[in-house]
């Protein structure tokens, strides 16, 4: 997509609209129990190549359940009761994710679709080094790689996210929250995936670190061209970050549109509520992130509030 002229912020649909990478059709997820709970109701979404799709909603609305179901990470008693999830591979093949057998699913995970969890919390194994957890991915998915190649690749991705490669010998508890999050992103980059699902990746971080990481995500997306599903309860943040946004309420998608339209003309009362419930972080929405992304021209609006970048974020 780097060859394209990046669309101006005001223009509707996302880049590469013609080439979807992930299609979800009429997906339903239920929790079996004494009382069956319908966590995801008739959800249909399309993620295009290189697009950032925001998934907004308060906790418990089913957004994480939806994201996990896409990668089939949901576990009993959660169950996909109907619908399809299709992955459109680079080479033109379509994969029906819900029909993959265990081994196929395992190979699919991370190599085509990786995930970023709240690394600041507990997403890294506390008792092994960062290097071991990075190399784990390579030894499993790329058995042909030599030790040196693995080491080099790990250093490369760490470098990409602005972590000094020497830190790979650290244990998670020796890293700051922001660093851990960067390591998580580096890990997600290892196999050059086409889709990255980010589940509240910046929630536990302070605002400054959060900005640095969001900027990094945008930059990497522009350089490497993966598509992102970005899950958060923070709608204003999504407005700045996403191409399109889906707003979820009690398992249903109540509004699904470009960030611009959603901001200017919210149709659903819940969206309006969400928009009003967050004070603007930066004074003017849509300013600070887009303005500095290399591939995005500055958006209309006041000058970016470009705070000093956190030390690790420069490259």
């Amino acid at each position, binding site marked *: 997509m780097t060859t394209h002229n990046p669309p101006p912020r005001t223009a509707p649909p996302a880049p590469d609209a013609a080439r979807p990478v992930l299609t979800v059709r009429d997906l339903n997820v239920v929790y079996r129990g004494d009382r069956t709970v319908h966590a995801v109701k008739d959800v249909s979404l399309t993620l295009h190549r290189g697009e950032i799709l925001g998934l907004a909603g308060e906790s418990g609305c089913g957004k994480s359940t939806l994201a996990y179901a896409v990668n089939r990470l949901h576990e009993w008693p959660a169950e996909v009761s109907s619908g399809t999830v299709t992955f459109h591979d680079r080479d033109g093949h379509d994969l029906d994710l819900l029909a993959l057998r265990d081994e196929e699913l395992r190979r699919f995970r991370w190599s085509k679709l990786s995930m970023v*969890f709240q690394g600041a919390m507990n997403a890294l194994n506390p*008792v092994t080094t960062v290097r071991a957890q990075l190399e784990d991915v390579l030894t*499993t998915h790329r058995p042909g790689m030599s030790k040196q190649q693995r080491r080099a690749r790990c250093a490369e991705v760490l470098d990409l996210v602005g972590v000094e490669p020497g830190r790979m010998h650290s244990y998670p508890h*020796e890293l700051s929250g922001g660093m851990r999050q960067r390591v998580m992103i580096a*890990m997600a980059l290892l196999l050059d995936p086409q889709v990255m699902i980010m589940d509240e990746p910046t929630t536990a971080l302070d605002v400054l670190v959060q900005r640095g990481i969001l900027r990094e995500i945008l930059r990497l997306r522009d350089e490497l061209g993966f598509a992102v599903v970005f899950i958060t309860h923070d709608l204003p943040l999504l407005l700045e970050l996403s191409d399109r946004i889906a707003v979820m309420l009690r398992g249903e998608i109540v509004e699904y549109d470009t960030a611009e339209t959603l901001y200017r003309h919210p149709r659903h009362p819940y969206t309006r509520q969400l928009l009003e419930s967050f004070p603007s972080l930066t004074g003017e929405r849509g300013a600070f992130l887009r303005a500095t992304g290399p591939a995005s021209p500055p958006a209309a609006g006041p000058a970016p509030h470009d705070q000093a970048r956190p030390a690790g974020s420069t490259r």
Partner: protein
Amino acid sequence: MRYYARKTGFYLVALWAAVTLNFFIPRMMPGNPVDILMAKLQQRGGTVGPSVRRSYELLLGADHSDSLAQQYLSYLNNLLHGDFGISVSAYPAKVSDVIGQSLPWTIALVGLATLISFVLGLTLGALVGWKRGSWLDSIIPGTTVLAAVPYFWLALILAALLSSTLNWFPLLGGYDVTYDIGWNWDFVSSAVQHGILPALTIVISSVGGWLLGMRNMMVSTAAEDYILTARAKGLRNRRVMIRYAARNAALPSVAGFATSLGFVVSGSVMTEQVFSYPGIGGRLLQAVENNDYALMQGIFLVITVAVLGANLLVDLLYGLIDPRTRAGN
């Protein structure tokens, strides 16, 4: 480094507490153990010189000429020199020699059986916890029953079944007494043969606790975020289970292994009583039956030192497998 210093300091305090307890217990108890001892010694034809009496008095506290503080210091001094006095029940052997003869038996039997039980329990517990909801869950009630049965009762019934009725194993003792003790094939094979049944009873009665503890930790760990990450990474199930779940879930069990060593020694008393095994636990009971107070106290101290030492070892090892402890808190 602070972690190691703290641990070492703690065990020194514990050692001091045990030694002091050992000093005060006979002094707080009713009766006059020294007189009983001297009488016993005379029965056995021992020469009862004043020095022997004096050493017993120091140990057991019937000496009223010295102050308590002086007694305590002399007592510590004797201990430092490995002088526990003379055993009455094995007269004229020194207490330290009696202990030296029986300790290896206990360490070999109980130590090995405990290690086997620990490893087995952790492995099974990891499997049961990981495959929760499968048929493996049906193991749990069995372990609950085993944990509730008195050990000696189970051991005696097993002994009656496997040894007396089926004749698979020799019933009593640590080896066939017709062989000479030493590194010869006959003796070693006989010792191994005699050890299997007691070891089996130890494993059967203790494996359930490890299994249950590990299983519960495994269930808790399986809900951690890093397990989700590992699964999302497309790692093989085995690898997620071992490297991510079990590696973390085992930490409390390893720490618990240290505290369990005390129970292990306690168990050895029972085992050795049931099977007339020539270990240190059996000796302790003989000492109690014969009012051999010196031997009793010596064995208690040796057991305590051994348990504390093993504890320290496990704790230091723990620092290696959990990087977070090394950082110090």
